[in-house]
């Protein structure tokens, strides 16, 4: 039963020693150790969080880039389309303008021809009347000589007209 009865001296030593141990370790060991472990865990957590944030930022940036590319492509298509429309417009306009100009020229030419024709007809009328007068004069002059000669004269005159 000796084993179950604590010695007073041992109790005293154990109490003092254990209190000293807890004090010394608490002050000089556990405090810095727990703080060190805690700080390190926190810095690791922080680093992981930061890495995650960076990853998200990267994803965000790359998706933004994609968006920008898409937008740029659309813009380019738009510009090309506009340019094409503009070109078509210009060509069409030129075409209609040319047609109008051509038509105007043709009209002018037609009027000119008409005028020339009228002038030519007027001149022809003059010449025909002069010629007629001339023939009539000659006929009237010869009519008095001979009948046969008159016929011959008329025929000759007609021949002359044909030659003219």
């Amino acid at each position: 039963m000796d084993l179950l009865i604590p010695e007073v001296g041992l109790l005293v030593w154990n109490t003092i020693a254990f209190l000293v141990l807890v004090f010394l370790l608490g002050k000089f060991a556990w405090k810095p150790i727990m703080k060190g472990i805690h700080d390190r865990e926190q810095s690791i957590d922080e680093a992981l969080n930061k890495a995650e944030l960076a990853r998200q930022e990267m994803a965000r940036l790359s998706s933004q880039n994609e968006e920008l590319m898409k937008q740029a492509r659309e813009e380019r298509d738009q510009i090309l389309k506009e340019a094409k429309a503009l070109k078509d417009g210009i060509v069409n306009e030129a075409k209609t303008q040319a047609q109008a100009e051509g038509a105007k020229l043709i009209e002018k030419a037609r009027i000119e021809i008409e005028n020339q024709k009228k002038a030519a007809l007027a001149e022809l009328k003059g010449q025909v009347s002069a010629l007629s007068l001339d023939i009539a004069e000659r006929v009237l002059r010869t009519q008095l000589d001979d009948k046969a000669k008159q016929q011959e004269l008329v025929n000759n005159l007609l021949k002359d007209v044909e030659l003219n």
Partner: protein
Amino acid sequence: MDYNRVFVSKVRRLIVVFALFSAFLGFTTGAFAQTDSVAAAGHEVVAPVTHGEEHGKEEKGFDITSFIFHHISDSHFFTLFGHGDHGVTLHLPIILWTDNGLVTFSSSAFQFDDAGKVVVEKNGQRFAIAHNKIYYANATADAHGSYVSHVTNEKGEETVTNVRPLDFSITKNVFSMLLSIIILVIVFTTVAAGYKKRAGKAPKGVQSFLEPIILFVRDDIARPNLGHKYAAFMPYLLSVFFFIWLNNMLGLVPFFPGGANVTGNIALTVVLAAATFLITTFKANKYYWGHILNPPVPWWLKPLMIPVEIFGMFTKPIALAIRLFANITAGHILVMSLLCLIFIFNSYAVAPASIFFAVFIGLIEFLVAFIQAFIFTILSALFIGMAVEEHH
């Protein structure tokens, strides 16, 4: 109270621990049975040889019980090797608080006596030592030459009736414990220096060896039981854990500076359990006291439950003290008993089996050294956790 937390969250781990624990308990009971039979046999053989003659004449029989109990109990000498005058012994200082004040002298003055035959005179007082305890010596010696008076009861156990001075000697246990404290302080201040030097970096050397254990105490002992309030109790829990573990391990080392049975001495386990009890009691919140003084039971059960709860406040730390003391002492007794088989059978032939089993048990003891430190710490955390737990 709420044991669920431990028994649910830690079920798998605890199953392993308790499996080992119960396996060990099996061994222990076996050991006690063995010791008992050994003791009985020893008494039969040694019955005619009284204690006084044991050292005086050459050994006729081998008193296993007293041999083992001599080894597991405290001592004023620290034998490095050999025996008595033929060996090398560290004589530890004796410090007595006597009727005439403080008396100090070296234990070498007793000349390895343990039967009260050598009287040391200091400050006009006379001291004799018997069974590792110092008594005021009688004026004259008895028939066996002993200066202390013995009374033998009907079981054959003899007790010394002399008055004792208060003994504050640096005994083997005190020496060993102080040594363990020096080791702990040196080791853990080194580790702490590592944390300061390599702040935020990976641990190195002894630091990387001890950090997982520190984290084990924090994450598997303190946090599950104490919740977010764990930080305040970490210094105590870590100190208790490493103090018990180191002393358990030192107790397993068969030669100097190990070999003292520090954690197998009730004086130490009582101090540790008292510390847990005091922390539990003084840190307890109103819910804890409410549970004890006004337990949630039908009113007619209260007269029964309140004394039970108050009784429970004390049984928990007492169980803590007894558990650690009994487990470590049992382990030491077991190893000693196995080795003593050689002397019981008085034959070299037994030695291989004896040594094989002693080594086997020694390995289990390594495990037990850790498990007992773990159990003491986790139960301390559990009791403190019950006292500081907030109810919603």
